[in-house]
């Protein structure tokens, strides 16, 4: 039993942390200057886009490595669709046994693959619901993955967009959610089993949990640094017990969320899909329960300045709001956990 990152994993974290400072966003102005294609290339150069491709049936890297990368990229507010494209779309294509050329395309120049989500964001959408669904992905998305259950099996469906995405509806300034444009579609690969979908959902939940931990942790760090410099009543506000306790309470929830996300991430490739899914729901339930409060506490520590557009505090809050909804908020997860522990109603 060893519930911490090993040497290699720590090295990966350090490398991605460092990358994130160059491709991430520090304030609203950066959003305009960041060049997504270049950023995406940087991820590819580091090998971060291939983590879930299969080598003789096994993913190149486990859920823990995905967790590490997702957490660090989120902490740096990297405005690239690592989670939907490099992790979840790639994983879907891998599970369906899609062609190598298709996978190459997913992680090629520009983030070309997005996911089709239900309008309430709680799950992948089915092809039949295309018009009401939303595309989760980058601005350069050309293909969108959805499911189809019209036949005997659940199949993966790939939409090819006939025009670039427009109408980004996302609250999160660093992640896109788009109205569905016109597109043509085709079935990709082999049928996907229920267990595969469970495992995929476990990966989705644990990775989004990691994303939330990343923003919470980094947001709090910033607020603590601010509290050392900002003076009120003749002393740094970080010396006030009220501020210290607010930070401490927030830290407790972040560390707790981190522990749950680590386990969920580890389970993805190590346990049966239903156990992995339970661990993932547990982690997501907790992250969703604390993320908004954590980022609100950060805004509170920043005081007035933390309420303004020019300050990045709201970036974290926005990403927390979106991450909370993706694949179900706390109450969705709790309802599922209750079902496994207490049976149906």
């Amino acid at each position, binding site marked *: 039993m060893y519930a911490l990152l090993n040497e290699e994993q720590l090295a990966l974290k350090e490398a991605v942390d460092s990358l994130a400072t160059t491709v991430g966003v520090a304030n609203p102005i950066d959003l305009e200057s960041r060049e997504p294609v270049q950023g995406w290339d940087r991820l590819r150069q580091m090998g971060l886009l291939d983590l879930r491709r299969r080598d003789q049936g096994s993913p190149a890297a486990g859920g823990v490595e995905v967790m590490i990368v997702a957490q660090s990229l989120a902490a740096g507010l990297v405005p690239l669709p690592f989670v939907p494209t490099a992790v979840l779309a790639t994983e879907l294509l891998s599970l369906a046994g899609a062609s190598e050329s298709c996978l190459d395309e997913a992680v090629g120049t520009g983030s070309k693959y997005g996911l089709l989500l239900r309008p309430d964001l709680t799950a992948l959408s089915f092809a039949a619901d295309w018009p009401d669904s939303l595309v989760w992905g980058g601005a350069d998305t050309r293909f969108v993955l959805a499911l189809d259950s019209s036949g005997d099996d659940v199949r993966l469906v790939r939409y090819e967009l006939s025009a670039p995405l427009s109408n980004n509806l996302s609250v999160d300034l660093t992640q896109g*959610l788009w109205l569905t444009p016109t597109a043509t579609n085709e079935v990709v690969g082999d049928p996907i089993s229920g267990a595969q979908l469970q495992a995929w959902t476990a990966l989705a939940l644990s990775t989004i949990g990691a994303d939330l931990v990343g923003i919470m942790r980094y947001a709090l760090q910033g607020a603590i640094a601010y509290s050392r410099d900002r*003076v009120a*009543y003749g002393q740094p506000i970080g010396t006030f017990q009220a501020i210290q306790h607010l930070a401490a309470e927030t830290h407790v929830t972040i560390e707790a969320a981190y522990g749950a996300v680590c386990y969920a991430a580890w389970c993805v490739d190590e346990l049966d899909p239903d156990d992995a899914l339970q661990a993932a729901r547990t982690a997501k339930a907790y992250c969703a329960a604390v993320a908004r409060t954590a980022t609100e506490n950060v805004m*509170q520590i920043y005081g*007035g300045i933390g*309420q303004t*557009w020019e300050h990045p505090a709201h970036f974290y*809050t926005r990403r927390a*709001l979106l991450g909370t*909804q993706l694949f179900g908020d706390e109450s969705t997860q709790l309802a599922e956990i209750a079902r496994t522990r207490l049976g149906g109603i």
Partner: protein
Amino acid sequence: MDYRDSAEEAEYRAGLRAWLEENVQSGYEHAASQQERAAIARTWHRKLYEGGYIGQSWPVEWGGKGLSPAMDAILNEETGNFNAPPLPGTAGYIGRALQMYGTDPQRTRFLPATISGDIQWCQGFSEPSAGSDLAALRTRAVRDGDEYIVNGHKMWTSGGQYADWCLLLARTDPDVPKHKGITAFLVDMKTPGITVSPIVLADGSPETSEVFWEDVRVPADQRLGDEGEGWRIAMTTVSYERGPSDIGFISTYRKSLAELEEAAAKKGLTSSAEVRARLARAYVLGEVLRLNVLQQLSLRISGRPPGEEGSVSKQLWTHCEQELQHLALDLFGAEAVTGQRPDYLHRYFMSRPISVYGGSSQIQKNIIAQRVLGMPRK
């Protein structure tokens, strides 16, 4: 104890309702821009003035009617019920400051125009490095003959873009303890050297402003009170910001809750016991706030100046509104984060600074502990 209107109050309320029926100004809520909203507010101010509803609780000698603070509360409540634009709050409390600290010429010059709405005021108090610790303000005013020269940077100057005059706090003596070196000024916002720039809040809407002061020359007869008296003036002024005017919030809150209940019902959520309990709790919190505010108001009616107990109302108000917006996000989170309900997102982000402005929640708790509960300072 009697929660019913007295005969006088009932009569006032009836008259007010009849007047509102005829005169209420619409369009504020859905105005396309902040500028348009400011224009509507100005017209509304003038209408209220013509109706006799501005400064009604001021002494008669200053253009008021000497009505009880209860009437101000009724005014707030009924204008809220009629969906009128907000009452011009600055007129009320800056009027108080003028009455209490102004010279006769100042009162004559400013009070009538403040009541009538010809002068719209803004408040130049906070600064980038003086928020909760307002007394740490750095904006300097240096005497130069018959004038003061002001240099500095003010933040959170609500309505700065649309105001005619500003009640400014500036430091005139840097060598005395910080509370003692502050002086208040009345400044024409058209004076050269003043630059107003919008502050955009986290949800992207420009809601307030920052004001840069560069060698702004203010005539000495526009100083309010004596040199060094600024802190006391500010504290009096701020204390009149709270209190019964919160009742304006209460009618807004009731409407927001009713809308949320309706939206929840439409979405089929009101069959869930959990959602029902949360909506009912929001109702309870609103009632609890309303009833606390009525007790605060009763203290005012019985002649007690607004005191530290207002911090309790402020905490309840904060809790109430922030919880309501949390509930809205919990019920309509997906809609809010995917642009389907920008109103919930807007209100959510607007609810966050409530625990920061007008004394942060941390400051309010200090006040309650030390001044209300008498707990010892270090």
